[in-house]
């Protein structure tokens, strides 16, 4: 995970309490409820400029910080590939 992603994600995790964020950090346990998860999705799309594909819109993607980071990376790569192809 890069610093930009961690800085983006941290405000949505009220129970992180200054502890380090790892790829195994379970987002729901750290306070990411449904409303916050929707806001997080909007923030990812607005600030990182990526749109998560339909196949990654599932509970597994939002289960851990690492799973979400991987989905964001895949979405970014996919969009770059599509731009290059165009």
């Amino acid at each position, binding site marked *: 995970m890069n610093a930009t992603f961690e800085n983006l994600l941290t405000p949505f995790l009220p129970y992180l309490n200054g502890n380090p964020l790892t790829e195994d950090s379970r987002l729901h346990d750290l306070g990411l409820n*449904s*409303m916050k998860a*929707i806001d997080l*999705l909007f923030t990812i799309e607005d600030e990182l400029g990526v749109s998560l594909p*339909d196949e990654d*819109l*599932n*509970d597994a993607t939002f289960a851990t910080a690492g799973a979400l980071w991987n989905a964001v990376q895949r979405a970014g790569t996919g969009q770059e590939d599509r731009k290059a192809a165009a």
Partner: protein
Amino acid sequence: MSTPTLLPRADPPSYRALDALTTGASGPEVWRALGAEGLLPRAYRDGDPRRGLEPGELGRLLAAVDGRFSLGTTLAVCVPLATCLPLLARAAGPASRTLSDALRGRTVVALAATDDTAGCDLTSLNTEAVFDDDVVELNGTKRWITNATRCEALLVLARHRPGPHFTNFTWVLVPADAPGVHAEPADTDLFDGSGTGHLSFDHVRLGREHVMGGVGRGMSGFAAHIASERLAGALWAVALCRRVLRDTLHHLRERPYADGTLWHVEGIRQRYAAALLLARQHQALTAGLADAVASGRDATSAAMLKASAAGTVERVLDECAHLQGAHGFRRGGPQELRAQAALFGIGGGTTEIVLSVMAGAATDLLEELDR
């Protein structure tokens, strides 16, 4: 004192086209009249639902409708304007065509979110969308849906996976005349003109192009636009309270009492003033937050507007109904209105739900009080 910016003292001349309709006109009749006059796009920034609501114009439009027609008819205009059309604007294909027709007043769209499960927990809804190659099949029911019996198209929130996760839900655009769609009026004397009813979907099969905004984006789409609906409700509440307060003041000034009228009784004047104060407080809050809600996804501000609208409408209408005495029980009077206006505390999220949203942002809201 400056003139309120959200609602002018008189309707702009353009809304006078509505005067051609009878006071008993239904929501779809008013929708078609507004569309024919090109007035519906004016509720959006640059006339484009993708760009969000234009609070000033939306407030004027809702005031124009509220001042002429029943609460149910205004409801039937408010919901599609605030929620359905912005949702349609997020999608392509059939949604684009429906949006275009709706903006011209040729199509009335209903928002079918609430299921036969508790409306305060949308993630428990049972209506299913099952995908089979390029076809999506809908099964389930929707309850208490505005415009259900009089619309041409339905935006249906359905689940495509079990479980409460927010990614398990999808919007489907359903033609109201699709095979398997059945609508029946709700058993109520309230909300005349709104076409409120219950819907059932029995093996409704549609092409996958009827999925709106992508599979799994049902709840996020809903969240993105519920703020708009709450802003619209707040603007409507300003108009409704203003109308009822004016009507009440007229009644008090005309009603003989002792050597004068009821308006000369100090206790009555004070009670009226307290209700007027509530309306002005809500108007001020709405004016202060409207742009923030309209221009982004400020869920906390939208929640505040919703809570304020519900509380203000309830207390102002209660007071006005009482001040009008027996006269308040006339058809269309404040006693009838207040029963229907309880909707402000229920539809689009109960007061308890929006207060919970505010509580979740309590620290930020306290910091705003310091500014």
